[in-house]
């Protein structure tokens, strides 16, 4: 199969399995470090958006890809994180290093509550429950004076003591390091006992329960962890955009997150990263393309808003129909092909 020989459990569970993985990751880290000095401000802003999306998508994949619990309400948790941090830093004067984990915890707390019905609900019912939760959160944000509804809310810049983050480059280092941290945590979670319990629940919940896995504990935990990630992503998004309105967090954001993990590959961390990068990148590529045609077809430039959601939908449908494993599946196939070349296996 072209795999590498492992002689101990420790090796099999290792985070960095081969020398080449270490080398490539090292190169990637180096690239991340020097990227801000090579790219333009616009390109950096796209990378920042991608970084935030990576955090949210990894969280959703832990819930949906690993534990198999469908959530159509990820945007609600992102919103909770964003507004929590906005209110904490703006109205209560709490510094950002504290409000970041707090917004994650706030989302996680509500995630635990949403997780409780998941003990009784499966598949469709859970999808609907989370969808309804998303609508209710959106409604509350609209109608509560604290969140300033339709008017939107200004969010303060990030400050660490006297040092405040302003430029795109500084944001990049903050977001990238948090995204890397999020990926490492998720990877560690996935290879630990908890991650294996998640997968067991996804594959066959009754069998998992028979084996002694507490369904209640791990399902609720999955919801909590996933919501925590979403909350952190929301907090970063709020501080990065510095202006949040309820419309940012509607159903289309939830669908975008679903698209990310499906395109990337369900149940893989690398997949969620790839998916987040691709789905966040697509609107920018379309903008780029329509810019080229703007001279000859001026009507094109306005289409992007209309097209975005439809293209996400199309990508979801096509991926599920033709490549259910997503980008990660393609990557694995290509890798296997070259590893065993010129043999078939």
């Amino acid at each position, binding site marked *: 199969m072209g795999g590498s020989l492992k002689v101990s459990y420790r090796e099999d569970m290792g985070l960095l399995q081969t020398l080449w993985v270490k080398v490539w990751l090292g190169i990637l880290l180096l690239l991340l470090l020097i990227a801000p000095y090579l790219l333009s401000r616009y390109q950096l802003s796209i990378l920042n958006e991608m970084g935030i999306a990576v955090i949210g998508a990894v969280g959703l994949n832990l819930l949906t890809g690993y534990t198999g619990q469908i959530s159509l309400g990820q945007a609600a948790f992102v919103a909770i994180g964003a507004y929590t941090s906005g209110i904490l830093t703006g109205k209560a004067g709490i510094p950002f290093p504290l409000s970041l984990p707090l917004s994650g915890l706030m989302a996680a707390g509500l995630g635990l509550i949403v997780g409780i019905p998941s003990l009784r609900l499966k598949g469709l019912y859970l*999808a609907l429950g989370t969808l309804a939760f998303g609508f209710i959160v959106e409604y509350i944000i609209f109608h509560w004076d604290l969140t300033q509804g339709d008017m939107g809310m200004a969010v303060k810049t990030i400050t660490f003591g006297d040092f405040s983050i302003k430029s795109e480059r500084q944001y990049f280092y903050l977001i990238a390091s948090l995204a890397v941290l999020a990926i490492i945590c998720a990877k560690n979670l996935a290879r630990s006992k908890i991650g294996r319990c998640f997968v067991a629940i996804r594959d066959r919940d009754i069998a998992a329960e028979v084996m002694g896995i507490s369904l209640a504990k791990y399902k609720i935990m999955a919801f909590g962890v996933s919501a925590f990630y979403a909350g952190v992503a929301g907090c970063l998004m709020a501080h990065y955009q510095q202006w949040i309105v309820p419309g940012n967090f509607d159903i289309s954001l939830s669908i975008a997150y679903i698209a990310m993990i499906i395109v990337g590959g369900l149940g893989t961390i690398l997949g969620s990263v790839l998916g987040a990068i691709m789905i966040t990148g697509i609107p920018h590529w379309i903008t780029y393309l329509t810019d080229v045609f703007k001279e000859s077809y001026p009507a094109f430039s306005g289409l992007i808003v209309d097209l975005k959601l439809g293209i996400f*939908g199309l990508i979801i449908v096509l991926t*599920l129909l033709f490549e259910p494993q997503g980008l990660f599946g393609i990557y694995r196939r290509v890798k296997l092909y070259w590893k065993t070349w010129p043999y078939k296996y």
Partner: protein
Amino acid sequence: MEKIIEILINGLSTGVIYALLALGFVLIFKSTGIINFAQGELAMVGAFICYSFAMLMNFPYVLAVLIALAIGALLGGVIDLLFFRRMVGEPMFSTIVVTVGLASIVTCVSGLIWGHDVYSIQSPFTDKTVAIGNLVVSQGALYTIGLSIVLIALFIVFFNRSLLGIAMRGAAEDPDIAGLMGVNVNKIHVAAWAIGTMVAVLAGIFLAEQSFVRLSMSHTGIKAMAAAILGGMESIGGAILGGIIVGVVEGFAANYLSGMELGNFHFGDIKDVAAFAIMIIVLMIRPHGIFGKEKVERV
């Protein structure tokens, strides 16, 4: 008292629309096992098609409705052939997400064709009212209620008496065994999607009659899902009762709760989330709906 009856009748007229949408939903679910999250979007497309024919091309209203129904049936069949023919037997997650994707595609395409403006359809019932004693009720509402009741009765007969209806139920229960029994499962699926979409289109036209034609009317689909859940996904009677409950509760919420304030929280258009609140409560207490039966899982 009169106000309450008026609210009841208006609630009933939105309720039967939810019931119709929920019916189309249950219909597709019962025969293909697929939960169609795009039901509301299909209703919206139907309303837009009816609008295009009735208002832009000046067809007579009834003819426009019939054309919309025919196009809807065609659309449903095509959707099944294109997307769901190859999804038979896939896990529920995939089918649900495919319909979610389908919903956003439909919204996107309709946005491109008809734009984001708000339109209204002039029907023979627009702005006409009927006075019963002291009550003033719009003709459209009565007409909607009447037609829906007839349709719903037809569906119940169809599922319990006709060969196609029974074959549909069989195909949902177990596609493989139904196939062995001589049921053409593929044909059944196309038929279910066609009929389900047609019902959705009709609901969309009724909805347009009561309010406007616009992209956001597709949210009604999710409320209808709340209705279907309330009644239990498997049961037609449940879907109807669920729809009516949701409609009436919405009516009362809109009338009595809308203006209220709780501290610095304004209730505003609470009508729009009432359905979801009911749904979450029902899911917590009776996850399988009022009439749904709990499924025994075999290991």
